[in-house]
């Protein structure tokens, strides 16, 4: 995020305590930039849906403020909500309605004049056009999910919230949805999505926020997050097993690990460090007459980072 980026949504110290006394959000600060795709990751019950519901007006925050395009979500709710489309986590649809009427209803509800051409485009983009006269109960789960997306897009929102859009969706459809998201981004729509699939965040998000237990632990550019927290490891398959790490490599203690059978040496290093130490390590090995049969490197995935972060906090 650079300074000239336009901040579209800004949450400041948002807390939420539910009626039963459970504190689902403990002072969340989050800025979302115009035009970006941000993924919110977090384990079950982290508060992702609660945060989204507050921004969209479904749940009242206990304290804190949220502004959307400079307007307060409470005082100027008409302005903020008309900018936002929401695809909820649950598949909540009117079983008896037709696809066409439920999507048209959404547009009217958001105060936009009827525009059958736009509805048609949305339905076609989501491959729902041939189902437009079907009742929703006649659709499969994945199609229902797409109906919810169509409803959210019916009023041409500038911001789209996708709360676990690909939960229970097959791989094929997931890829389709990523394509839809990509298209929306090209149209300038800002997208906030929550997901449990880390590869999803990795595939489509510009930035990633991690929420755990009602707090944002980290928000970073995807690439920066991965290099910053990303450890790389170098795996050396040895020609002949070692009984112990050679003495002349004592400088690498801690970073160097010998497998139980002595045939694999693993070296962990930080990619952002000035020197990775690889050259020195290899030179040291040659010196000690250790012959390397094969070598490979491994970059920790977002998944590893995520698990680390959440575990660290627990």
């Amino acid at each position, binding site marked *: 995020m650079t300074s000239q980026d336009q901040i579209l949504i800004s949450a400041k110290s948002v807390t939420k305590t*539910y*009626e039963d006394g459970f504190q689902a959000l403990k002072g969340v600060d989050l800025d979302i930039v115009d035009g970006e795709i941000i993924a919110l990751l977090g384990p079950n019950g982290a508060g992702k849906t609660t945060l989204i519901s507050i921004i*969209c*007006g*479904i*749940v*009242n925050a206990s304290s804190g403020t949220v502004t959307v395009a400079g307007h307060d979500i409470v005082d100027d*709710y*008409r*302005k*903020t*909500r*008309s900018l*936002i489309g*929401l695809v*909820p986590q*649950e598949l*909540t*649809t*009117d*079983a*008896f*309605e037709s696809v066409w*009427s439920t999507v048209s*209803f*959404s*547009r*009217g*509800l*958001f*105060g*936009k*004049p009827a525009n059958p051409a736009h509805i048609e485009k949305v339905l076609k983009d989501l491959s729902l056009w041939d189902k437009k006269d079907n009742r929703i109960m006649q659709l499969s789960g994945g199609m229902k999910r797409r109906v919810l997306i169509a*409803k959210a897009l019916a009023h041409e929102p500038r911001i789209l919230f996708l709360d676990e859009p690909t939960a229970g969706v097959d791989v094929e459809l997931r890829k389709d949805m990523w394509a839809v998201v990509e298209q929306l981004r090209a149209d300038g729509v800002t997208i906030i999505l929550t997901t449990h699939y880390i590869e999803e965040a990795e595939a489509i998000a510009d930035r990633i926020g991690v929420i755990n237990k009602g707090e944002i632990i980290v928000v970073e550019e995807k690439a920066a997050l991965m290099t910053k927290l990303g450890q790389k490891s170098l795996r050396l398959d040895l020609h002949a097993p070692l009984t112990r790490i050679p003495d002349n490599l004592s400088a690498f203690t801690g970073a160097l690990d010998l497998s139980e059978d002595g045939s694999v040496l693993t070296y962990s290093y930080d990619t952002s460090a000035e020197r990775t130490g690889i050259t020195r390590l290899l030179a040291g090995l040659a010196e000690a007459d250790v012959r390397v049969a094969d070598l490979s490197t491994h970059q920790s995935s977002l998944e590893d980072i995520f698990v680390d972060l959440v575990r660290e906090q627990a």
Partner: protein
Amino acid sequence: MNGRAILAIYRYEMARMWRTIGQSVVSPVLSTSLYFIVFGAAIGSQMQEIDGVSYGAFLVPGLVMLSLLTQSVSNAAFGIYFPKFTGTIYEVLSAPVSAFEILCGYVGAAATKSLILGAIILATATLFVDLQIAHPFWMLFFLVLTAVTFSLLGFIIGIWADGFDQLQIVPLLVITPLVFLGGSFYSISMLPDFWQTVTLFNPVLYLVSGFRWSFYEISDVSPMISILAILVFLTVCCTIIWWIFKTGYRLKS
């Protein structure tokens, strides 16, 4: 004011009614016809006129009120409870609409349905009895305000309800007895003094009495009091709803 949103909700709700036309219209019309046959034609023929009006004709305003009240309450209660139950209410809550606009859409549709129903019942009644309406304006006044007021009441019940059985309880256990005991099928002057006094505490009496007055100019209480009563009920319901929206009670968490 988001007029398009009101219209969208209103149309959506009306479409739901046309889809469920069977339970929405046919069954109340059928049960009302049964009342006419049993009370109007069979028993009514054995009864003397009440204040110069045949018993069959006397029944009509009461029967219309019975349907209007129960249907307004249950239509509106169901209308708002259903999206709460299925979860589709999320969309209305996330839309740029005020509580008042949501109310207009849902209550407007519920009231329209029961007015259509009232009109159908009146039309059905003309098949059985000779109907005359002395004060068409006041007739409409009572009809519309009763439909709106009790749709508001239904809306409150729908918001308060936690289960489908609770939606049934109020119409069944409260509205129906009040209508039966509120002079719908008899003039309270037929009752012993004590029960006449008790009946004065029944709000429905004022509606039925005023409504019947608009047809035949006969009434148990002065029509002015009836007009006042319906306005009071309307105000009470509006106040409760204003409070509900102000506190977000049971719609938002």
